[in-house]
C-alpha cells in the first residue's frame, strides 16, 4: 500500500504541472463553446437553465429598497487587492459591482462602494463611472463615490463597521477576498442593516458568512454574479463550462481513488 501511494505521489509530483496545464488548455475551447451556447440562448430569449440563487434575489430587493427610499446600498469589495493572488476574488467583486452600479445609476442612487486596496478602488471607480456614463450622467459620478476606507484589512473593517453602524443604507453587500476581519463588519451589518448579502471564498471565513447572512454566496457562488445579475454570455458560458470541468474533476478523483485502491 505504501508503495502504491508513494508511486502515485511521485508520478503526480512530476506530472501535475503538465496535467494542470492540459486542463487549462482544455478549458479554453470549452469556455468558448459554452459562451457561444449561452449567447445563442440569450439571443433566443430562452430562460437560462441555471439553478435559483436566493442571494441575488435579495440583492435586487436591496436595490429596490434603494430606489424607493433613496438610501444607498453599501457594496464592500473585500480586503483583497489587484495584482496578487486575491485578484480573482476582487474580480468577482467587480463583476458583482458592475450590474449593481448600473441599476443604481438607473435609479439615480449613489452606492457607497468601499475597498481596502488602492488598485481595486481605481478599478471600481471605472466601473461606477461607466455605469453613470451609460445613463448619460457621467457628471453625477464622483471620485469619492468609491472610497478606500483604509489600505489595511483591520482598519478597513473598523471603518466599515462605523459606516454600517451610522449610515442608513438599503442593504449591505459584501463580496471579495476577506480574511479574519470579515466578522467584525459582518456582525455589525447583520445587526444594523435591513439586508445583508455576503460572499467569500476563503473557507476560514465561510462560517461567519453563514451566520451573518441569510442569503450567503458561499465559496464559488461568489463568482457567479456576472452570469446571474449581469447576464453576460461569457459568464453564463463559464458556469456551463465549470459544471463540465467539475464532472471531469470528480472523474479524476474517482480514477485516483481507483488507482490507489487497486493493487495486487
Amino acid at each position, binding site marked *: 500500500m505504501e508503495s502504491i501511494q508513494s508511486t502515485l505521489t511521485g508520478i503526480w509530483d512530476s506530472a501535475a504541472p503538465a496535467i494542470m496545464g492540459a486542463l487549462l488548455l482544455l478549458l479554453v475551447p470549452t469556455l468558448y463553446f459554452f459562451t457561444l451556447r449561452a449567447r445563442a440562448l440569450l439571443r433566443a430569449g430562452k430562460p437560462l437553465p441555471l*439553478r435559483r440563487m436566493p442571494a441575488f434575489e435579495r440583492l435586487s430587493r436591496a436595490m429596490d429598497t434603494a430606489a424607493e427610499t433613496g438610501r444607498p446600498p453599501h457594496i464592500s469589495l473585500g480586503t483583497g487587492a489587484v495584482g496578487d493572488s*486575491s485578484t480573482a476574488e476582487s474580480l468577482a467583486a467587480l463583476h458583482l459591482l458592475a450590474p449593481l452600479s448600473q441599476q443604481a445609476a438607473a435609479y439615480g442612487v449613489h452606492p457607497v462602494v468601499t475597498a481596502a486596496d488602492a488598485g481595486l478602488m481605481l478599478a471600481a471607480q471605472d466601473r461606477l463611472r461607466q455605469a453613470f456614463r451609460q445613463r448619460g450622467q457621467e457628471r453625477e459620478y464622483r471620485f469619492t463615490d468609491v472610497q478606500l476606507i483604509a489600505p489595511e484589512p483591520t*482598519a478597513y473593517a473598523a471603518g466599515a463597521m462605523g459606516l454600517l453602524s451610522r449610515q442608513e443604507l438599503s442593504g449591505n453587500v459584501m463580496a471579495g477576498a476577506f480574511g479574519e476581519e470579515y466578522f467584525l463588519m459582518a456582525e455589525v451589518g447583520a445587526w444594523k442593516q435591513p439586508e445583508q448579502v455576503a460572499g467569500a471564498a476563503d*473557507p476560514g471565513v465561510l462560517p461567519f458568512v453563514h451566520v451573518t447572512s441569510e442569503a450567503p454566496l458561499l465559496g464559488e457562488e461568489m463568482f457567479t454574479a456576472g452570469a446571474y445579475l449581469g447576464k453576460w454570455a461569457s459568464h453564463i458560458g463559464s458556469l*456551463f463550462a465549470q459544471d463540465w470541468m467539475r464532472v471531469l474533476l470528480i472523474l479524476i478523483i474517482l480514477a485516483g481513488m481507483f488507482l*490507489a485502491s*487497486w493493487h495486487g
Partner: protein
Amino acid sequence: MEALTGFDLTAVQAWVAFVLTLMVFSYIFGDNPLFRLAEHIFVGTAAGYVAVLVYHTVFRPRLLEPLAQDPAGHGYLLVPLLLGLLLLAKGKRSTSWMGNITMAWLFGVGAALAVGGALLGTLASQLRSSWISLNPTDYAGRPLGLINALLLALGTIGVLLYFYYTEPAGKGAGRLLAGIRRGWGRLGRWFMLVTFGALFASAIIARFTLLVDRLHFLLQTIGLLGG
C-alpha cells in the same frame, strides 16, 4: 522618547493604549463618540503606517535607490516608473484612460498568479490528497479507517455537486442523474455545514484568546495584576 517630545513618555504610553482599548470596547454599549474617535484614529494611523511601510519597503529599495545609484544599470526600472506615473493620471477624469494600461498590467499579473496558484497550489494538492484507497484490505483491523475514507470521498464529491449550477431540462436518464446529483449535493451541504461548525467553534477559541489578552492588558495597566 525624550528626544522627540522633551518629556518621559513611558509613564503615559501605557495609559494611551489603555484608554484607546477602552474606547474600542465601548462599542459593546453601541455606537458612541468614543468609539468613533478610536475608529478614526485607527484608520488614520493604519493608513499612514501602510503608506510609510510601502515607501520604505517598495518605493525606496526597489525603485528610487537603484535608479538614483546606478541609472544605467537599472534602465529597465524606467518601465515600472513610467507605468506608475501613467497610473497617477487616473486621478483626473480626462486623463483617466491613460492609467488603463497600468491597471491592465496589475490585472494581468494578478489573474495569472491567481490561476497559477489555484491550479498548481490548490487544485493539484487537493486532488492528490483526495486519492485515498477504498480497498478494504488496506484497512485490515481498522474498519473505521475504511468508513472515514468513504466519508471523505462522499463529502468532497458531494460538496462539489452541491454547487452545480446547470438545471437541465429533465427527461429520462438525465432526470435520474439530476436527481442523484441533487441528493448527493444535499449530503455535500451537510458536510459543508459540519465544516462550518468546526471552524466556527475553533474561531471562538481563537477570538476568546484575543479577548483574554486584552483583558489581561487592561487589568495589568491599572495595576490589578501587580504590573
